[in-house]
């Protein structure tokens, strides 16, 4: 096997199909999007070259900045929620009873499709017969809020299902990472008299720091380009109160038939994601990797 793999041509042969696929399906569309973003185009008729006009317009577009703000807010909330998932995973990995079952329960939302989740939460949030408002009126609240119609709270109302949806995914990652820590290290610490807090904070967390960094990147990038649940639940409304970058892009490209502008938004989103990833890498960078 080693002999075969030492031949450069064979390596090229094996890598080629995947490389071709990724170029055709990922990189070419990215370049095309960048190209379209320099055009004024309704998606059907003639394209006219307008250079950076779309981007100039974008910089002045208050709705775009509002959606960028909303996306960043979602990223902040997702990262904060990672802390919660970490705590849950620490507890689960601490050999409590029923950890296996609990882990599976947490994972279930991840297995549902986003549209199903959106439908489920639409029922919960329904202003008059929804579970949440029925419960509130049972408690004696006179005029329970219109969760998805009130511009001041709609954004948070859609964040909750999104965070709920991804809980299982991150818990699973953390759980696996924690289970990977050699038991000899933990046992040694216990013999040395470490209490559970010290065990978690001084031993376990530093050992899975690499995984935590990856999840932060995943959460931030995932939030920035988030689309489906918001699209189904509110469509970005009322009047843009829950609009995020991706839903705004969809609206511009497919509703307003402004493909050039939509492409400009998409390309900006890509740049934002790359910058965010780079920043997080930079900020969380440590010289020494912990080894065990």
């Amino acid at each position, binding site marked *: 096997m080693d002999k075969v793999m030492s031949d450069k041509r064979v390596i090229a042969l094996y890598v080629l199909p995947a490389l071709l696929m990724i170029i055709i399906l990922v990189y070419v569309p990215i370049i095309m999007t960048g190209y379209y973003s320099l055009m004024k185009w309704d998606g*059907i008729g003639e394209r006219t070259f307008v250079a950076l006009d779309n981007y100039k317009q974008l910089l002045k577009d208050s709705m775009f900045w509002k959606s960028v703000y909303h996306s960043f807010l979602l990223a902040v909330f997702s990262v904060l929620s990672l802390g919660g998932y970490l705590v849950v995973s620490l507890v689960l990995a601490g050999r409590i009873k029923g950890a296996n079952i609990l882990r599976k329960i947490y994972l279930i939302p991840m297995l549902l499709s986003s549209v199903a989740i959106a439908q489920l939460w639409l029922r919960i949030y*329904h202003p008059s017969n929804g579970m949440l408002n029925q419960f509130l009126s049972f408690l004696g609240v006179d005029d329970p809020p219109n969760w*998805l*119609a009130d511009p001041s709270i709609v954004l948070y109302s859609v964040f909750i299902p999104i965070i709920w949806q991804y809980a299982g995914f991150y818990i699973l990652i953390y759980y696996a990472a924690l289970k990977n820590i050699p038991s000899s290290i933990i046992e040694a610490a216990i013999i040395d008299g470490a209490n559970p807090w010290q065990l978690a904070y001084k031993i376990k967390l530093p050992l899975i720091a690499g995984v935590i960094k990856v999840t932060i990147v995943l959460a931030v990038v995932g939030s920035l380009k988030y689309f489906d649940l918001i699209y189904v639940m509110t469509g970005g409304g009322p009047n843009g109160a829950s609009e995020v970058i991706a839903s705004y892009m969809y609206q511009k490209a497919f509703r*307003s038939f402004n493909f050039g502008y939509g492409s400009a938004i998409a390309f900006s989103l890509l740049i934002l994601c790359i910058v965010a990833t780079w920043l997080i890498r930079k900020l969380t960078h440590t010289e020494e990797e912990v080894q065990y």
Partner: protein
Amino acid sequence: MLKKAHTILWLVVLMLVLAGCSEKTTEKDTEGKGEEKVTLTFMHLWPAGSSKQHNMIVNEIIQEFEAENPNVKIKQEILENEQYKNKLKVLGASNELPDIGMTWAAGFLEPYAKGGLFTPLDDLLDGGLRENFVSGTTEPYALDGKTYALPLELNITPIYYNKGIFEKYNLEVPKTYDEFKQVVQVLVDNGVAPIALGNKDRWTGSMWYMYLADRIGGADTLKNAINGSGTFEDPSLVQAAEEIQNLVKMKAFIKGFNGLSNDEAKAEFTNEKAAMYLMGTWDLPQFTTNEDIPKEFREKVGFFKFPEVEGGKGNIDSWVGGPGVGLFVSENSKHKEEAKQFVKFFVEKWGERSVTRAGVIPATKVNTANIDLPQMYIDVLNELANASNITLFADVQMNPEAAQTHLNLIQSLFGESVTPEKFAKQHQEALSNTR
């Protein structure tokens, strides 16, 4: 030995299969000789699941057409509404439209027509088909004097109401807007939600605004504001926006309407939790013939015309509405003639069957004298005959970009996050910027 037997068996089976195949193909070949075989693709948005009746009629018409034209085969591709719109756009961009497909009027059709993707169908109209259509229904599909699609449906929007609830509180069908507001007040006082509205979809609220604009400013004010010969800052259009907010303040609409979809709102009406519902006549089957909805409820539903506003210029026989989907033929179709013939055939047959079988009011004239229909249909068809004006839905009249601004502003107006003056001003800006 066994292995050998297996191999032989396999060979025999294979030979049989191959022989079968080849025989069939030769048969087909001889059959097809003589006339050229033509396959037309037809894309539409009536799946058997959600639009059973529509789908059945489509299949019947296709069968009949194929029987009359044995050399033509129609291949259907069926998608749900939203997917349909997206797919059509993608196909349009790559110049691969189906031979025949469905389109909406005005703003939706414009980019396709301008891009030369649809072929003009005026020769069909001039060939005698024009007589069949209700006057004015083909105009929204025309651009620069050419008609690019032929409509299948025509809809107007009455206010449906629950007779049971009205009786319970001794309410009369309102003739004037003041009476209408009294009805709303009585219902609110009794804890009944007056109007079901799902304004997450936005065009639903737009219809309320359009009616008020029509009744206050007359049929042309809004039209002119949209086509640029008038202005959106016309006092009557601002006043209509104020009236919307007055209704919101009265709690005329169901709770949380800005976050509810149209379907959710309709459920409130069909569950008898709300008394009134302004919606297109495309929902008539649900209130008359649809067996899935309880009979007791269907018998309670009536409709009335949007009341007149005192001192307003509008008249009660003016409707908000318009043609729904229409059929187009692709400019790039290899078999344009056959496709056009199919469109003509389809429009005629559809007109004969759609109203009795699927409850769709066709854009072609219907003779009510000798057909058996629920009373509400006959009433609507008669109203249609008396209509003084039909104003096309605002978001269809406007170009797509301005339409989005309009729809968002409607949501803000209903949510009281924009003043009537700003509402008008921002419309004016959006309309003049995108013209």
